[in-house]
């Protein structure tokens, strides 16, 4: 059996054992089992990767077919793995980050009285689904992974199902993702009608054979799926709510892996997208809007996980933008580093939340630097990485995107500037949360002590929580070094066989304004630094000023704080109208139909009552009827027969 299948099998086994026999396992057993399964998968992935590197670049594309999955007539979808540098990279990210976060979760969930079995089972299931997603060799199978991660996401967001908001968030996440699924399904149908295949190989080789209009339709429909999964505008509203799940879930699913599936889809389908300029423009602009909006909203959020969620949305916007302008490699690079530093940030936040007893409100934190050194360090490293401060990983990956935004022929200066500006904003809001949480005086007096397990001060992280932070911290720091323009193109070279590089994208040419890569990089880094500085100024040096500013721009503040009221708008536009429509159909139309049906019954009943009245009991009436019948028959005989 191919090694790669072990990546699937081990977490699957972990899931199955936990799900079926979990109730007989000891309390910590679930976590350990799941982590071992995930670690095994990671090892297998590493082996696959090493094997892979041993192959010549041209041979790094293999398709492994396990069995015929769905075959109906000429429709064929196999259960197979499509191994190429991109999917192997994703394999590594998913299993690697997955393992780290599993490990972290053991400690994080240790205090939970119940639900560990469920939690770890679903966590393993998520890994399986995510691997199916990235390994799939056809769109239908990809959809399985796609749906599977959605389900795992649902199940894990609703981990605290007894909280109404968690339950609602889970449902919301699943529904919004299903919107995406619907789009994708339609895209796949159209693809099949057009190309007669849903296999990557079949579609990509024939990509050119369809008209631009059709391809645009296909790609746009697929895009709907990607937007929903990756929390891009306009389907982003579920992601912040999804933070209702446990923090490791947020780190793994809603930051590092699942939400990047959209980017993966775009990158995977690039042969199609390259043929649909309209779609690419759409992606670019949606990415840009998401990037900016996410950052803006992130500026004022007070929930630490929300901040990070919007930051995720924003960073995914970067990736979409990159994909839109053709910089797939940059997008994937950022995906990789983002997985490291965002997971790191979440885990650090998790440590904080864990320590303060489940409270996620930044306004009730503060001054944790001394008490939670590991978290402070990790959050700081992650912050520096996301802020694009060299030499942290985010610097290289983000600057690649910014640079591409300036140089790509599909891009323009506005996009370039937006990416730069957002970089500054990013630095600001991340460090805002950093400073709020770790600096200043503790504002934790209102911490709820209802939860029995958490009273009595802070809750220091155990080893299983610190080690993951360390691993991710190191990766977030040095992860970017695998791809340094002008110095090291290892990453790009690695992905080269996947993206036979689009010719219209200048690799490292002069930017639109004549700037070189390093000029832009320095400007970006500077903006990042300024952002950090402003954050320090506002939240550490002059904390009152921030509040002042918020009051001064109360309208904008409220607007941003309420996430531009987009949720409310959707509620009004879609939720309420659907509900109204459903109610109308239920109470009006359906009852009417029923009434018509029953009306026939009533009519018969009425007729019956009338006939009963006619049957008056008087003999003479009966005789009358007989005579009338006779007269009628004779009349017919005389007139009808004439």
């Amino acid at each position, binding site marked *: 059996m191919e090694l790669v299948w072990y990546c699937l099998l081990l977490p699957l086994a972990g899931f199955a054992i936990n799900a079926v026999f979990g109730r007989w396992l000891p309390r910590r057993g679930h976590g350990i089992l799941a982590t071992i399964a995930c670690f095994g998968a990671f090892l297998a992935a590493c082996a696959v990767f090493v094997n892979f590197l041993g192959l010549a670049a041209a041979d790094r594309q293999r398709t492994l077919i396990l069995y015929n999955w769905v075959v109906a007539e000429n429709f064929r979808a196999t259960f197979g793995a499509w191994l190429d540098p991109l999917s192997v990279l994703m394999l590594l990210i998913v299993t690697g980050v997955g393992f780290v976060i599993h490990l972290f979760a053991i400690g994080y969930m240790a205090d939970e009285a119940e639900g560990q079995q469920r939690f770890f089972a679903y966590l393993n299931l998520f890994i399986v689904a995510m691997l199916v997603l990235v390994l799939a060799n056809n769109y239908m199978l990809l959809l399985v992974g796609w749906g599977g991660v959605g389900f795992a996401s649902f199940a894990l967001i609703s981990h605290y199902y007894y909280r109404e908001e968690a339950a609602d968030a889970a449902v919301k996440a699943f529904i919004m993702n299903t919107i995406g699924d619907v789009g994708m399904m339609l895209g796949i149908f159209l693809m099949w009608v057009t190309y007669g295949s849903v296999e990557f190989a079949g579609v990509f080789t024939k990509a050119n054979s369809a008209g631009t209009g059709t391809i645009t339709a296909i790609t746009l429909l697929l895009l709907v799926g990607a937007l929903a999964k990756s929390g891009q505008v306009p389907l982003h509203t579920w992601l912040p709510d999804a933070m209702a799940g446990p923090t490791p879930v947020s780190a793994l699913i809603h930051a590092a892996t699942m939400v990047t599936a959209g980017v993966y889809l775009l990158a995977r389908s690039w042969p199609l997208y390259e043929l649909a300029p309209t779609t690419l423009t759409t992606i670019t602009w949606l990415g840009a809007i998401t990037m900016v909006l996410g950052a803006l909203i992130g500026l004022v959020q007070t929930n630490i996980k929300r901040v990070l969620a919007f930051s995720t949305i924003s960073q995914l916007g970067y990736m979409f933008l990159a994909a839109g302008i053709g910089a797939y490699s940059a997008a994937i690079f950022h995906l990789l580093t983002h997985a490291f530093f965002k997971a790191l940030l979440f885990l650090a936040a998790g440590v904080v939340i864990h320590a303060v007893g489940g409270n996620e409100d930044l306004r009730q934190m503060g001054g944790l630097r001394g008490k939670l050194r590991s978290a402070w360090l990790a959050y700081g490293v992650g912050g520096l990485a996301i802020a694009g401060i060299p030499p942290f990983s985010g610097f290289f990956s983000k600057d690649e995107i910014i640079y591409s935004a300036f140089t790509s022929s599909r891009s323009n200066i506005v996009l370039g500037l937006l990416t730069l500006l957002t970089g500054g904003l990013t630095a600001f809001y991340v460090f805002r949360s950093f400073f709020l949480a770790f600096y200043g005086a503790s504002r934790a007096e209102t911490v709820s002590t209802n939860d029995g397990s958490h009273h009595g001060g802070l809750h220091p992280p155990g080893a299983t929580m610190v080690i993951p932070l360390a691993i991710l911290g190191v990766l977030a720091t040095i992860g970017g070094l695998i791809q340094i323009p002008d110095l090291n193109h290892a990453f790009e070279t690695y992905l080269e066989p996947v993206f036979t590089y689009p010719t219209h994208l200048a690799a490292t040419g002069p930017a639109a304004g004549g700037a070189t890569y390093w000029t832009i990089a320095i400007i970006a880094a500077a903006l990042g630094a300024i952002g950090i500085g402003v954050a320090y100024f506002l939240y550490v040096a002059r904390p009152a000023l921030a509040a002042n500013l918020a009051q001064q721009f109360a309208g904008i503040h409220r607007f941003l704080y309420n996430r531009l009221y987009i949720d409310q708008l959707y509620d009004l536009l879609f939720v309420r109208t659907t509900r109204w429509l459903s109610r109308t159909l239920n109470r009006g139309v359906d009852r009417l139909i029923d009434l018509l049906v029953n009306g026939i019954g009533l009519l018969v009943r009425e007729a019956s009552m009338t006939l*009963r009245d006619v*049957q*008056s*009991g*008087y003999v*003479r009436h009966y*005789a009358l009827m007989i005579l009338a019948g006779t007269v009628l028959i004779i009349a017919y005989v005389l007139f009808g027969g004439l």
Partner: protein
Amino acid sequence: MAPLSYYFILSALLFTVGTVGVLIRKNPLIVFMSIELMLNAANLSFASFARAQNLMAGQVIAFFVIAIAAAEVVVGLAIILSIYRTRQSVDVDDLNVLKG
């Protein structure tokens, strides 16, 4: 001698009067008599057609009708009597318990 059509008309008239009598009278005895009238109209018709065709059959049939009518009268009057015993009244319209 009057033509056949006259006889025919007479029998039709008597028959109609008989049917109307059944419909408008409440006394079962008179209703019954009206029915006898209808049968007699039929008999007249039989007899006249028999004469018109010079066939005995019509007369014989009329004879049978009279015989049956006699039997019917016996039973009918017996029923009326038995009802009268139970109810002390014989109004056709009072018989309307069974209805609907």
